[in-house]
């Protein structure tokens, strides 16, 4: 929101690969990946289940370490960036602490980093206002709907005004109608804050609606198959992505473009009866 948009890339992934050691042998989750996310840019990762979207995001967040390659966040190592709280993160499950109120949950990162209590209170009010939950500050997560919980999680991720937001299928557990509403909210919020976003999703329309660029990944071992730039982004400011867009021709075209990138040239027909990819 207030941070000046610097020219250094928000995320710089270079030659990162990841191998998990398991009881049944090694799993190559990612093959060397290169990806740059500019400051303020909205990038979605899409791909079949198990292709390594979450893994890639976790490497950026320094929740896991790459087997090879480097990850930089705003020019720092990912570890440094984590310690400096350069990013905010949200997962598919809202992951609210059930014993804390809405306000308490949003306050958590601020508390942990020793924010003074007065500053905290005003920041929380601001955040809850931003996600439209000002009236629910004293509710407990179990008293909220799924969509409201996710909004709290997003507010929490934004609490420390990060310049980068990492979101792993944050709307995956919501029903489609709530989901569309949340997408619209997210567009507004990310425009307001000016943060870069790395957004993992399974939904093509979602990726299309939200992103400046959509990174399409191939099945395991995860590679980047194609990066589809959204013409939407070029034509219109992100904040202007409204509900009407969803019914426009250009939207369907982009959806089709991503669909085809995803199916990667292979015939789309009913592969049928086959085993799932995961």
């Amino acid at each position: 929101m207030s941070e000046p948009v610097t020219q250094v890339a928000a995320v710089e992934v270079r030659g990162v690969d990841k191998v998990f050691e398991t009881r049944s042998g090694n799993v190559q989750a990612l093959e060397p990946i290169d990806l740059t996310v500019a400051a303020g840019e909205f990038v979605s990762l899409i791909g079949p289940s198990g292709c390594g979207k979450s893994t890639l995001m976790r490497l950026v967040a320094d929740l896991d370490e790459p087997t090879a390659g480097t990850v930089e966040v705003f020019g720092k190592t990912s570890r440094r960036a984590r310690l400096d709280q350069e990013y905010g993160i949200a997962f598919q499950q809202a992951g609210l602490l059930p014993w804390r109120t809405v306000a308490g949950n949003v306050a958590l990162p601020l508390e942990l980093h020793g924010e003074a209590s007065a500053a905290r209170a005003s920041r929380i009010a601001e955040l809850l206002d931003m996600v439209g939950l000002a009236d629910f500050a004293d509710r407990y997560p179990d008293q909220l709907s799924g969509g409201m919980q996710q909004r709290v999680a997003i507010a929490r991720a934004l609490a420390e005004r990060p310049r980068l937001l990492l979101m792993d299928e944050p709307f995956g557990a919501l029903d489609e109608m709530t989901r569309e509403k949340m997408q619209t909210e997210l567009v507004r919020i990310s425009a307001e804050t000016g943060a870069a976003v790395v957004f993992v999703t399974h939904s093509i329309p979602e990726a299309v609606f939200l992103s400046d660029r959509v990174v399409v990944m191939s099945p395991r071992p995860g590679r980047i198959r194609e990066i589809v730039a959204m013409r939407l982004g070029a034509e219109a400011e992100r904040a202007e992505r409204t509900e009407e867009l969803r019914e426009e021709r250009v939207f369907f075209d982009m959806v089709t473009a991503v669909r085809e990138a995803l199916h990667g040239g292979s015939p789309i027909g009913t592969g049928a009866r086959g085993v799932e990819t995961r």
Partner: protein
Amino acid sequence: MSAGAVTAATAPGRPKGMGPRTEATLRIVAPVAVGLIVLGIWQFLVSVVGVSDYLLPSPVSIIEELIASWDSIVQATLITGTNALIGLVLGSILGILLAAVAARWRPIDRMSAPVVAMLAVVPIVALAPVLNSMFGADSQFGRQAIATLASFVPVFLNTLRGFRQTVPVHRDLMRAYAASSGQVLRTLTLPTARPFILTGIRIASSLAVISALVAEYFGGPRGGLGSLISTSAASSQYARAWAYVVASIALGLVFYLATLGLERLLQRHTPQARRRP
């Protein structure tokens, strides 16, 4: 919950850089090492520091005593073990049956709640003398009754919980199949409750042994581990008393492992946490 499930759920907690093989080894080595260290300190205290062997016999003298009175120890272990086994079996059966009844009829459930709560807190020492009066001091039945009561509580509570674990989608399914209540019990309720029942039985197993043993302190035929521990201790034969204690620990362990094995055997296909392929 089975140890296996714990591992699966908390696998990320494995110390960094430790392979699965190392983990498997350490899981065995670590407890053995702890046991050996304790034994070592004990032996050291007795033989080097010189804590009187009269009060705290050394591990070595206990082992000697174990060998010396092997026959009578086996005999005593069998007596106590039989009582505990009968108690465990009876208590488990009673617990499962009563839980089934309580799960079926709400009034029974609500009425049994305080009674079970009371049974859960009654000290065996309090009950042993009156049960001996009620069931006769000349048979093992009083002890078996105590072991039964002790086993009953965890089995009942866990089973009752298990009977409540059927998920709505399964109940709906059964209704959609127009399944009779017997069919529902057989195909849904019992299998759902099974892990809970088995957990209850496992918890009950140690309790059964310990209560059968403690009950021997309070009357009834002699010959079990409990009465021999007390007799040996009363005549200051502490090494022998400890040998009987070791036997009773072993007995408890056998019961625990047997029920754990039963659990593993019947639960081979319990859904584990979804592991990534």
